């Protein structure tokens, strides 16, 4: 209990580094979620609206990619961003851009899969009504996304939860550089490794709070949709 009290004191004392780390994590999570949502939601909706052979196989593949460990995604992106990789010239490795890119790629299949499965749960009559009234592809897409706005909200929150809590990508692509790419999860890993648990627990509490807030918001979104 003493350690927890020290951790909370550290958190509420306004420790500059802790709050910088929290801010950086939220910033990375926000941008990587945006970058995953922008192509991921239309791709998931297209998978839902499309009538082509192999659609289910594609959906199953996307679902499978979703369960790939974050460190593998990190390694994959690392091979592109490293000095000898095809995108090495960008200088994104061990930089915020690298972490954001990696987290976006991590969340992308999740966004597609959640959009696809979420839209499948919508009343099919909605899409059929749009179609029979002569709505074109884009109108139908917009109409479906409007009807499925709670699905979209849940997808955004799930993506946010996925990227804010991951450690593999941030560690491999960000390098855990102090005042530059250090996030909550990489700090926890580092501090726990050093045996300095106060800082790790303080950030753990913050991460837990973020996860709880995201889950509660997601739960409310589902309840409102129902």
């Amino acid at each position, binding site marked *: 209990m003493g350690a927890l009290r020290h951790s909370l004191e550290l958190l509420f004392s306004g420790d500059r580094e802790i709050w910088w780390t929290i801010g950086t994590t939220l910033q990375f999570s926000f941008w990587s979620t945006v970058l995953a949502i922008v192509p991921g939601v239309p791709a998931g909706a297209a998978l839902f609206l499309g*009538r082509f052979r192999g659609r289910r196989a594609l959906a199953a593949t996307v679902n499978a990619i979703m369960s790939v460990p974050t460190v593998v995604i990190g390694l994959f992106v690392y091979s592109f961003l490293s000095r000898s990789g095809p995108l090495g010239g960008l200088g994104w490795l061990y930089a915020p851009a690298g972490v954001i890119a990696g987290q976006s790629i991590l969340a992308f299949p999740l966004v597609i899969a959640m959009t696809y499965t979420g839209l499948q749960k919508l009343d099919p*009559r909605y899409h*059929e*009504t749009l*179609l*029979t*009234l*002569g709505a074109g592809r884009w109108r139908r897409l917009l109409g479906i996304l409007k009807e499925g706005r709670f699905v979209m909200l849940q997808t955004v929150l799930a993506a946010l939860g996925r990227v804010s809590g991951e450690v593999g990508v941030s560690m491999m692509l960000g390098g855990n550089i102090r005042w530059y790419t250090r996030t909550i999860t990489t700090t926890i890993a580092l501090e726990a490794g050093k045996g300095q648990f106060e800082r790790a627990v303080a950030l753990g509490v913050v991460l837990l709070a973020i996860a709880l807030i995201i889950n509660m918001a997601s739960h409310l979104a589902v309840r409102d949709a129902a």
Partner: protein
Amino acid sequence: MPLNPTPLFELERLHFAYSRRPVLNCQRLELPAGQAIAFVGPNGSGKTTLLKLLNGLVGPYQGTVRFAGRPLPGNAELRRRSVYVHQHPVLFAGTVRSNLVYALKLKKFRGRELEERLQSAAQRLGILELLDRTAPHLSGGETQRVALARALAIGADVLLLDEPTSSMDRASDLALRDILITLKKDGLSLLFSAHDDSLVAGLADLVCLFDQGKPEPLVPAGEHYR
């Protein structure tokens, strides 16, 4: 007038399955224009699926379906002239007026023409007093009439109706029957599924009996009930 006018719909060697489960099998069937044609048969015999298929809402399928002499996929005339109305139609969030306006705008009607069409369809279906009501709060009978008004407003002359009077109180049922009879007299083609013999006897010119996914040749309604 040609002796043998082009049928409204022609089906040839049609085979349709949901996930390998055969739902429809039809060697040949012609559905003439300007008639009220009832699809009659037990639940699960393929009536609704055929109505949806004729409107291009389900697919892909084996065989050929033609509308006004042209194959179905990509048949712009079908989308312009026909509307499928669900057993429990979907009205979008907003007022009845906004539902009609949305459908009219999808067909690129604007300004005075839009308003004239809206008023004309609302008058025809007796929903003028409902125009400012919230659409999802309407009763089953009112919803059905709004859905029909929406179809007529955009100029549909082929209505595909799935059990149009089911789950309605007696007064709404009778009112809708009168409307459908008037629409038939106005020259619209009505293709509808029904379990209610009195609706079939009172409205249909022709009857198509379904037996385990196989539509039988059309017979005059009088002959069907002999």
